[in-house]
């Protein structure tokens, strides 16, 4: 490890309290659901009860005649538009036209004076359906006689970022392939090969706040107040859909009550805006939890993988086939599939590897982004195969990683950014934190896992910093405060650059009418990229101050005086702008901006009689380059750890013929504080090797890929290898019964 001489910094590196803590604890913080717009009415959505059907007729006349109903939107109202949207593939109509492809798909929407009237009106809409055969699972969707969900060629959306879209093959809407080296001959020469089939469940991101949108349409002017993570991408999609200039669309985003990817890209905005357009009044639509569960979810996945190693412990080859269940519409499926494909080999030095990842349409709710997507899907599989190889060779799993992991600066894949982290150091710290070399009692096991996530998305962000006449600083930046703390971090950065107190800096939510462009809030990018834009903007202000001071020392308390001198009266402000844009060719594929480290360790105890798995210790590594606010970094890893334990142990959306069976929080369980491990460690690693301000790089997702993988490996260490998540008591118990029959339990 290199010893780095640190410049002393005043605010960066300190766990300053969250800037929004006070407001949120008092219940004063405003969320979209709190907004009341003059003349606003309430929208409710009629959703298809069938997973796959033709819509023969929709009759809304009775509903429209009810007192208090303003209007009912159906497919017939969209004839003046190209009604299809989707940022990756334009495959989704605003409301169903003549075909519903999942149970829960919007078929009509009502606007009424109050919610109860809107709900009552839904019952008065008559829809005639003609049921079609259902492809409810990946297997059904890939069968030779499978119903085809989308006919004709696929139209690329505005933000697919994936080069040429390959043609649709049946229900496969996207395919991502990598092929390196002489795969078959390397496998043929290998000493040890592990192979298996794996299944990964669909889960719901479960943000406490459901999707909520208020939309107002006046002529060409469209305003939406929305629970969205990417306001500028939503703006562009709405402008495209309603064929108006970008500047006519205004997206306002206050605080969000959690997102985890469930609010990335466009969700309920087109439907709400179309309803408001017809109503001629602002409309609010707020999903219930069961509605949000069919609005977006994580991709379930099937995978076949094999990995080869020599007797000495050299990893040589990996072969991966996987199928991502994207539901009825692509949403972010193509990107999830590509990122999953990239994560599949893991950060090892292979002689050959092959990945073939497909994104498959099924008759279920659409799947999109979820924290650590791609890596979360594949890391647990690849890492469990490495552990199995290590066991067969009689080697320590940690030693196998030490010998095979790529080193800082090493190339990970052709043309991509080389490794910008010390993975061996990271995994050793994680292992130590769960007592790797301590003796274990019966039924206790330990596991580690290592992976990487291509992070940063497309590196385009801008920020504006305003120094007001009274010395206060306002930062305008398009990052969404989802709970992860960017408003605090940006205040720290601006305060650092300008020498003011953090309390003097204000960072508010996004209003695309005034806030400069930022691509998105996701892919762990905000501190790194938007943070860099804030730093550059603040530096511009500082440069101007230096010029005005003309050699006098810059004293923050004297800023008002300097401004007065400059403008000749009390008023005026200094404005700095900062921009981050891709360097080189700027291709997204060439990226990533940085590799997010996904390293974790776990210690579990299994109760073999019931199959109950208890997690005793966990460790995650936040390899963040530079922790601008260490406490926020830790909270990110802790949140992701708890979420990862839910993913590993009990979260699963259960579908039958395309119908979601567990659509309430009584049956779909998310972790509570009672599910915390006895000991949870977050190790912060600061090697200042990130591309962001002060050497920072993003975090917050890695642990969600690392923890389930570490738990699976820890359970395999007890003797119970699992190829299907979640690790429910029943599933684990059944596995133990099979192992008993095979004479493999107890080991």
């Amino acid at each position, binding site marked *: 490890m290199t010893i780095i001489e640190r410049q002393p910094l005043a605010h960066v590196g300190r766990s300053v309290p969250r800037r929004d803590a006070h407001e949120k604890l008092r219940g004063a913080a405003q969320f979209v659901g709190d907004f009341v717009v003059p003349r606003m009415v309430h929208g409710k959505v009629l959703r298809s009860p069938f997973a796959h059907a033709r819509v023969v007729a929709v009759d809304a006349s009775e509903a429209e005649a009810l007192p208090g109903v303003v209007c009912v939107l159906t497919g017939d109202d969209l004839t003046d538009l190209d009604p299809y949207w989707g940022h990756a593939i334009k495959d989704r109509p605003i409301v169903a036209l003549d075909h519903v492809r999942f149970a829960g798909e919007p078929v009509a929407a009502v606007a009424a004076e109050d919610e109860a009237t809107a709900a009552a009106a839904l019952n008065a809409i008559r829809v005639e359906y003609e049921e079609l055969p259902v492809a409810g699972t990946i297997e059904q969707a890939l069968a030779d006689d499978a119903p085809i969900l989308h006919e004709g060629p696929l139209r690329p959306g505005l933000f697919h970022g994936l080069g040429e879209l390959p043609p649709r093959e049946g229900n496969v809407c996207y395919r991502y392939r990598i092929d390196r080296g002489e795969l078959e001959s390397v496998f043929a020469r290998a000493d040890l090969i592990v192979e298996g089939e794996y299944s990964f469940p669909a889960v719901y991101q479960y943000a406490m706040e459901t999707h909520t949108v208020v939309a107002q349409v006046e002529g060409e002017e469209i305003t939406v107040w929305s629970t969205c993570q990417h306001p500028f991408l939503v703006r562009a999609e709405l402008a495209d859909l309603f064929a108006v200039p970008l500047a006519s669309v205004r997206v306002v985003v206050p605080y969000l009550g959690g997102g985890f990817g469930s609010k990335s890209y466009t969700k309920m905005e087109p439907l709400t805006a179309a309803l408001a357009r017809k109503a001629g009044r602002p409309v609010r639509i707020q999903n219930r939890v069961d509605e949000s569960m069919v609005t977006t979810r994580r991709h379930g996945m099937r995978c076949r993988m094999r990995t080869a190693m020599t007797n000495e412990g050299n990893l040589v080859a990996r072969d991966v086939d996987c199928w991502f269940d994207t539901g009825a519409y692509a949403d972010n499926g193509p990107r999830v599939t590509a990122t999953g494909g990239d994560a599949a080999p893991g950060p090892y030095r292979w002689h050959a590897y092959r990945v073939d990842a497909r994104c498959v349409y099924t008759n279920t709710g659409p799947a999109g982004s979820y924290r650590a997507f791609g890596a979360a899907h594949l890391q647990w599989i690849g890492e469990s195969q490495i552990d199995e190889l290590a066991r067969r060779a009689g080697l320590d799993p940690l030693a196998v990683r030490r010998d095979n992991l790529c080193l800082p600066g090493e190339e990970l894949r052709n043309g991509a950014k080389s490794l910008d982290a010390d993975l061996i150091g990271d995994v050793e710290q994680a292992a130590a934190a769960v007592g790797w070399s301590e003796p274990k009692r019966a039924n206790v096991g330990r596991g580690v896992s290592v992976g990487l996530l291509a992070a940063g998305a497309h590196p385009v962000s801008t920020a504006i910093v305003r120094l007001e006449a009274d010395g206060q600083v306002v930062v305008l930046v398009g990052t969404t405060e989802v709970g992860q703390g960017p408003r605090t971090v940006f205040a720290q950065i601006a305060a650092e650059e300008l020498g003011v107190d953090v309390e003097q800096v204000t960072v508010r939510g996004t209003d695309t009418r005034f806030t400069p462009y930022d691509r998105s809030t996701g892919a762990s990018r905000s501190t790194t990229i938007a943070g860099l834009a804030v730093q550059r903007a603040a530096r511009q202000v500082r440069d101007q101050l230096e010029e005005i001071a003309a050699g006098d020392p810059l004293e923050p308390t004297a800023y008002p005086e300097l401004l007065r001198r400059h403008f000749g009266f009390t008023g005026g402000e200094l404005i700095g702008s900062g921009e981050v844009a891709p360097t080189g060719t700027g291709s997204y594929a060439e990226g990533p901006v940085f590799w997010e480290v996904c390293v974790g360790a776990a210690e579990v105890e299994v109760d073999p009689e019931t199959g109950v798995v208890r997690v005793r210790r966990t460790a995650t590594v936040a390899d963040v380059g530079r922790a601008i606010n260490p406490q926020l970094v830790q909270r990110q890893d802790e949140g992701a750890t708890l979420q990862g334990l839910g993913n590993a142990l009990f979260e699963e959306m259960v579908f039958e013929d395309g119908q979601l069976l567990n659509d309430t929080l009584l049956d779909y369980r998310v972790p*509570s504080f009672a*599910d915390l491990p006895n000991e949870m460690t977050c190790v912060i690693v600061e090697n200042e090797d990130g591309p962001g301000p002060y050497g920072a790089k993003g975090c917050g997702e890695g642990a969600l890929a690392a923890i389930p993988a570490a738990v699976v490996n820890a359970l395999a260490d007890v003797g119970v290898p699992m190829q299907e998540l979640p690790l429910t008591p029943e599933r684990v118990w059944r596995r133990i019964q099979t192992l008993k029959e095979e004479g493999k339990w107890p080991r």
Partner: protein
Amino acid sequence: MDVLTPRSLEQALRLKAERPDAVPIQGGTDVMVELNFDRARPAALLNLNEVAELRGWSRQNGRVWLGSGLTYAEAMERPLAEALPALAEAARTVGGPQIRNRGTIGGNLGTASPAGDALPPLLVCGAEVKIASVRGERIVPLPDFVVGPKRNVLAEDELILGVSVGGTESRQTFMKVGPRNAMVIAVVSLAVRVDGDLRAAFGSAGPVPTLVRAGLGDVDSFPQRVAEAASPIDDVRGTASYRRHALRILTRRALDRCLV
């Protein structure tokens, strides 16, 4: 919708007789879920929260009287928790703090869910349900009170006053298996009491919570008998065969705990 709020038991019974369609509501943790999901649209609610006679608990001739308005939070407090430890353990596993502050024993009986967590501990303690209407009172042993999944013997003018239980200070315990540590509808739940004989009652493993009894000499075969008494189903929470297996394991462990 009308909300009727009687101030005394007498008033409550009269209102229930006049408006048999009025749905009684105590904590509302089941009733409000039904309303919010639009699964029920009652014409009236009978709010029992102001009826003092339904609240609290008392000792009566060696038995304990639990008013139908007794909350889970109250059941967790000493000295009641010492008198009925299995009920207290069950109460601790119900919902989160908000649900435990509002949810009541009477509501759990009213709902009569196969997964109702208060029911197995009450069953092993020989609970008798006291029911009243303007026509008079009657006492129904708990096994006869619940007649099917979410069905009980209440007539439309009747209210639950509370339950009388025995078996206080006996050895008893409650356990459940679920994938999550708290706030979960169990895959199976179980109460066991050892006091002169062996008693086990389980939830989530049949259409109604069920009581199984055996002599003290049958300790070894009891877990198997409990498992065989169950008639579980396959659903999103678990399969029948796992439920039966888990009951056997839990019964053995519960006996171990009670017999030390």
